[in-house]
């Protein structure tokens, strides 16, 4: 079991809130057409299932928490080192990828990709600076050539 924390409680709550939101939106869709062929029918059904399932998840999470507390009280719990669920590193990586997708539309594939590869590989310390520069230039050029000239695809 990864990260014995209140993951099930937190995710259960988040899923419950999302389920309730989808349910409310779906109820409005039920007004269109008869209920049995309405566009809101399946969304209502699945959001109801999501809500019920998230309640079960929350219940399971709360039970796990009770077992953990009892184990702590009796001293029978092992000292489980809590690893952080999220690291700073992954958020930076996601940010770099998101930025790449934004600039892709403005600067086109080649320039955006060269910049993206350089920045990300540099951040990840993938290899030496010289190799990073070589990869950052050669790979996008190669990919552009293959997709434009061999596959005849339109790229940004």
């Amino acid at each position: 079991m990864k990260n014995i924390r209140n993951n099930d409680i937190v995710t259960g709550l988040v899923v419950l809130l999302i389920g309730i939101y989808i349910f409310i939106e779906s109820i409005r869709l039920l007004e269109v057409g008869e209920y049995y062929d309405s566009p809101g029918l399946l969304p209502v059904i699945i959001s109801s299932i999501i809500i019920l399932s998230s309640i079960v998840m929350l219940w399971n999470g709360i039970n796990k928490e009770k077992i953990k507390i009892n184990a702590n009280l009796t001293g029978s719990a092992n000292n489980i080192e809590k690893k952080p669920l999220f690291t700073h590193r992954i958020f930076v990586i996601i940010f770099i990828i998101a930025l790449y997708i934004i600039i892709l539309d403005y600067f086109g594939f080649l320039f955006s990709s060269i910049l993206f590869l350089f920045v990300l590989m540099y951040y990840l310390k993938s290899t030496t600076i010289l190799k990073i520069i070589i990869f950052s230039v050669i790979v996008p050029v190669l990919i552009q050539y293959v997709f434009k000239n061999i596959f005849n695809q339109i790229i940004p």
Partner: protein
Amino acid sequence: MLEALSQVLTIKTILITAIGVMGGIIVGSIPGLTVTMAAAILISFTYGWHLVEALALILGVYAGGFYGGSQSAILINIPGAPSAIATGIDGYPLALKGEAGEAIGLATIESFFGGVIGILILAFVAPPISKFALQFRSHEYFLLGIFGLTMISKLASNSLVKGIISACFGIFISLIGLDVVYGACGRFTYGQTLLMGGIHFVPALIGLFAIAEVLTQLEKTQLLSSAVPKTIGKIPKLATIKKYLYITIRSSFIGTFIGALPGVGGTISALVAYDDVQRYVKKPSRPFGEGAYEGVVAPESANNATIGGALIPALTLGIPGDAVTALIIGAFLLHGLRPGPLLIDRNPEIFWVIVFIALVSNIFLLIFGLLYSRISVYVITVKSAILMPIIVLICAIGSYVFESNMFHVQAMLVLGIIGWLMRKFDFSIGAMVLGIILGPIIDDNLRRALLLSQGNNIFLSFLSKPISFVLIVLILALVLSEINLVRRFFEKINIRIKS
């Protein structure tokens, strides 16, 4: 059948199949790259291709990928693909004993046999199943979709509840956009023009499989691989192949059967086959876990046989057996065909094209598998920190090219982040993907079924049909088996019967 053979035996198709198999072996052998990721990206690149060529590439990657993982499992004890976990248990000790060449040769031959047996079973079993499924109507299709989702939620997930939530979110994503029946009504579009076209399953799959994997890999600290021995795969002697023939056939049947269960895939079939061979082989060549040849034969024949098994429900019922067959269904949809009983009935040549391509793929697997071992040492040790950023580039292009729309690239990233979070919190991506693929089928058929009954006696209309009734019982059995009270009740009955 002859028409299908003539379509497959063209130089172009054979070349594409060969490229696919080689690509699949390379992808499968590199830890961190997955066949599913490669297939998801290839779906969009092959969008404008002829269906036969698109299938040739994807099936080639599929066959090669399942096998490719065994090379790194044997050489460095890090399976390139999850389906090779069991192979490494005895494969790596063989490499340590200086028999890496023999292990790779055995893995290659057994993958070939397993793949061929799986495809032959597909060829015999699929047409009668398809004929039977011609009786299916809206009620049955709706319930079949629900059954497929319930099955994958149970089998591919640690928790049925989380699997069901994933599947429901998948259906929800498929419903975004303008309603098919009431065209002016947008579902969860918020007046945005971009959302009215919905979230296309191609960027969704690329995001959920490929980007999620990239983020998961980059989050880890890098694994430095130990020195990889240079080796050449050695073709086993005929006597060796004959000696393990029974294991090969038995494990291939296991792999095919398990592959036919939605959501299970090659990993489970290989592990089940390994477990099975441990139990019935009393005198292995060496103790299991210390380089027993049987420990390589069983999982390798099972995992490639899974391919044939997974294609059975995909082609006959439109329910994918694993993630890659879900993508193959996607390829069909992109080309305007819907897998299911009508596919084999109206386009039998397509079914036979798949069978022949899969057989040709296995022949190339045999050739390339042995040749690849000469260069695998250079490929297997490529760092994730170099490979993953390049994968992001390919994913971005893959999501953009098929409709030249940046919105798909943005959707890919959002779903990629969702997929990464799902892995973190133990939710099944497979269930969500199946929900995305089956969502429209479930929606259409539910509404059609209810329209036929005009909203009256809904339950009776489902229960009065024998096939629907059986499907309802199966779905309930899957769900109720998760409930502890029910499980304990049946255990007590079992104990009473035995006593």
